[in-house]
């Protein structure tokens, strides 16, 4: 009994003296959804955050006020700049719900390395946000653009990077852990997806941008930006980005078309599964990479005359897509070679298969990488031909012939 009484009293003391340590009511914090990092004229960090106005996003009565607001502050260090935002923001900024982190292109070219430590060290971040680069503009301008469909622009950007990665494959959702790993580890270089604003970014900041169906300023995804170390070097185009995703086994679904039959008629194939195996080795002092791709496709659209029940004709289509994919891959590899940036992780592949040899070459891997001999072996398998077997084009052609 005495013990219970003592325990009870000590519990009460604990509870009353601690005084709700580190409690933050929802009305005392503001949620940041996007964080933009630039450098200002004085070479200080310029941090811009996009915060949500919850009652405009999910409230009962929605007024014409903007659903997000952006605040920026500058500071010698990242953390200082982030804390300085409290001077402008009425509430403490809560960074745990960050959806996207955007670097300005200019900033990225100078190197993003110094920012990473704060991002991973600070307990306020959850490391599952997407990282991207504002292509051709400052990150601040990018996160200030309002989007018509999603009330929170950052959410729009994050979800469109994800969905385009899953369905079209020219972009890649890079999370903080992955970025840090590829920036710091050997045998692999980093990439980040680029985002740009189509139209005038200044117009995008006003409410007009969300009022019209065809917004004057649109946030669009671009292809992949190539890094060497922590510095942005340049950009891949859309096809090269897709080739990148083929090589790195990052395709869940995409679309490819090949010519078929007579002239410029096409058949479109939906990639439903793609498996890539990378094997690396050093032969005669030259790195050699063997890529094995197994691609499963469905027929999506036939605009030519073809008999899909005929094995030979199917094989021909498969061959064409195989060749096209090989071209895509080679194009992507040669672009990366130009930047001298091993974004595919070929170095890591060599290290895995031949650690001994890798030790000899790793110091001059940057110069050795452009000499890599990449052999891609692609196998395409048509799985299903869709709901119909004979193309409608056949009937149309027959009819026009009869008409003649």
């Amino acid at each position, binding site marked *: 009994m005495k013990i219970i009484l003592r325990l009870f009293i000590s519990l009460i003391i604990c509870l009353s003296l601690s005084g709700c340590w580190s409690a*933050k009511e929802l009305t005392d914090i503001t949620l940041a959804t996007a964080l933009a990092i630039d450098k200002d004229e004085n070479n200080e960090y310029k941090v811009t955050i996009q915060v949500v106005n919850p009652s405009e996003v999910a409230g009962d009565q929605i007024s014409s006020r903007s659903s997000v607001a952006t605040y920026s502050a500058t500071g010698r260090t990242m953390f200082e700049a982030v804390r300085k935002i409290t001077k402008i923001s009425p509430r403490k900024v809560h960074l*745990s*719900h960050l959806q996207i982190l955007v670097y300005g292109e200019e900033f990225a070219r100078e190197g993003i390395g110094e920012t990473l430590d704060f991002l991973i060290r600070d307990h306020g971040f959850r490391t599952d946000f997407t990282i991207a680069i504002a292509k051709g503009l400052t990150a601040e301008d990018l996160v200030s653009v309002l989007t018509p469909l999603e009330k929170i622009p950052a959410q729009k950007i994050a979800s469109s990077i994800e969905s385009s990665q899953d369905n079209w494959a020219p972009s890649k959702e890079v999370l903080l852990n992955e970025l840090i790993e590829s920036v710091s580890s050997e045998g692999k270089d980093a990439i980040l997806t680029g985002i740009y604003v189509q139209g005038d970014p200044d117009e995008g900041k006003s409410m007009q941008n969300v009022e019209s169906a065809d917004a004057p300023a649109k946030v669009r995804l671009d292809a992949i930006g190539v890094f060497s170390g922590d510095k942005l070097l340049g950009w891949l185009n859309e096809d090269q980005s897709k080739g990148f995703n083929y090589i790195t086994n990052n395709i869940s679904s995409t679309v490819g078309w090949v010519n078929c039959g007579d002239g410029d008629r096409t058949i479109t194939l939906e990639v439903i599964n793609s498996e890539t195996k990378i094997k690396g080795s050093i032969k005669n002092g030259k790195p050699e990479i063997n890529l094995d791709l197994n691609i499963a496709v469905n027929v999506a659209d036939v605009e030519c005359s073809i008999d899909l029940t005929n094995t030979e004709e199917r094989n021909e289509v498969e061959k064409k897509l195989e060749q096209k994919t090989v071209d895509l891959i080679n194009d992507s590899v040669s672009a990366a070679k130009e930047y001298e940036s091993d974004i595919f992780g070929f170095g890591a592949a060599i290290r895995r298969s031949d650690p001994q040899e890798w030790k000899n070459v790793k110091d001059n891997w940057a110069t050795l990488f452009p000499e890599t001999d990449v052999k891609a072996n692609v196998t395409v398998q048509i799985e299903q031909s869709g709901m119909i077997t004979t193309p409608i084009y056949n009937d149309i052609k027959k009819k026009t012939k009869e008409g003649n």
Partner: protein
Amino acid sequence: MIIMRQKFKKTSSTNKRDITNISSEYEVNLSNELESNKKEIYRLLGNSSDLVTREFQLGKIRPINARILFLDGLIDKEFIQNYLLNPLINDLRESKSDEKVLDVQELYQFIKDFTITTAELAEIKNFKGLLEHLLAGDTILLIDGIAKGFAVGARGAKERGVEEPTTQKVVRGPKDSFTETISVNIALIRKRIKDPNLWLESFAYGRKTKTKVTIAYIHGIVNPRIVDEVKARLAKIDIDGILESGYIEELIEDETYTPFPTMFNTERPDAVSAALLEGKVAILVDGTPFVLLVPALFVDFFQASEDYYQRSDISSLIRLLRYIAFFLALLTPSVYIALTTFHQEMIPTTLLVSLAAQREGIPFPAFVEALLMEITFELLREAGIRLPTPIGSAISIVGALVLGQAAVDAGIVSATMVIVVSLTAISSFIFPSYSLAISVRMLRFPFMVMAATFGLFGIFIGLIILTLHLTSLRSFGIPYLSPFAPFIAEDQRDAVFRAPRWAQKKRPRLINQRNTRRENAGQPQPDRKG
């Protein structure tokens, strides 16, 4: 607390002395004279107005004065008239008319052997026995010239019939329930278990109420040590009155300072019978339909009688639901508080934004908001129970409309909070046992305080303390958390899940060590040859 206890001890010992004095006064034997006996009875009962007496004469030739005494309302008057007064006055007169005159002693024996035709008849010699019988509702017959009397059992106090249980309802299963009369209750159990090994032992407790308390068990199944323990604890009871089995429960339970019940109470005869067959001891108390079952384990409070009448898969799922409901009822408000004030990063962004939108303009912190709504709900619930049924429904309308809708509209509480409180409330109604539901209701508040001060960390500290406490509890020597702690694999067949009947071959192990096998048939195998 300790000082208070000592005080209590002192007073109780003085009381004991008083009562022995009084009862020794009652030990006085009856006298030969009818009139002085009558006067003494009237004096002892303080001339109470419900004491009824009727004087009459026995025999025709040399009539002897006799008198019956009873307490109005406790006896069946018609029965007394037909089977006691009629034979005594009329039959005796006729049968005596042509025989020789008997002396008083012979007459007494004659009456006992041939005249009184009732089933229950007891001889009384002193005032103590006389008063016991009189107050219990028997009719006393005194004859002039004899220092003895008869107590005729013809109790007929108004009592409630066997009705449907009001607290533990079932969809499928027997619909009778215990009443306030202990003899009826015992009969309801006897009707179900026709075994000579169903043994009953009766005691009377309460210095003033003399309440009949009966313990029931099945000899050969029950662990005799538990029966001895029950009897030993009951023997220590020394109290003015026992009006409900709750009195007994508090006086003999293992641990008073716990929110959890360590004795199971039920008004269902089928539940009691099932418990007896498992080897438990039932404690029936006169005057209440609630029968106590010991030992009671934590899992017992999650088991409804109906679990055993429905198919095992269905009852297993429903039982699982009750365990989930236990945590919901206990933790929903505190988890809500913890997440919204400490761990915003754990809530999905979209949900958090909508929560934040609702909290805009709410003047209170989440904890105060939750406390406000929980207390309001407790008020409504308590009011709903006490009020007469028609007004009770009005209260629920007021509660739902005024407090739910208006509070949200007025911006005093957020809509999510109303959802949280409703979910908690619904979950707490799911338990088959009301006594556990109250515990959970109570424990919710400390958890809310813990959550408001330490967040999820506090909730986990609370849960750890709760688990430690539960493991330390015993019910008549049986660990409260068994069959989980200590873990008994065999008994898992009737814990969170209920295995089919044929798979529950053994009785619960800790409760029952001898004669453990209760089922022998094995899985039914229909003959597929035909």
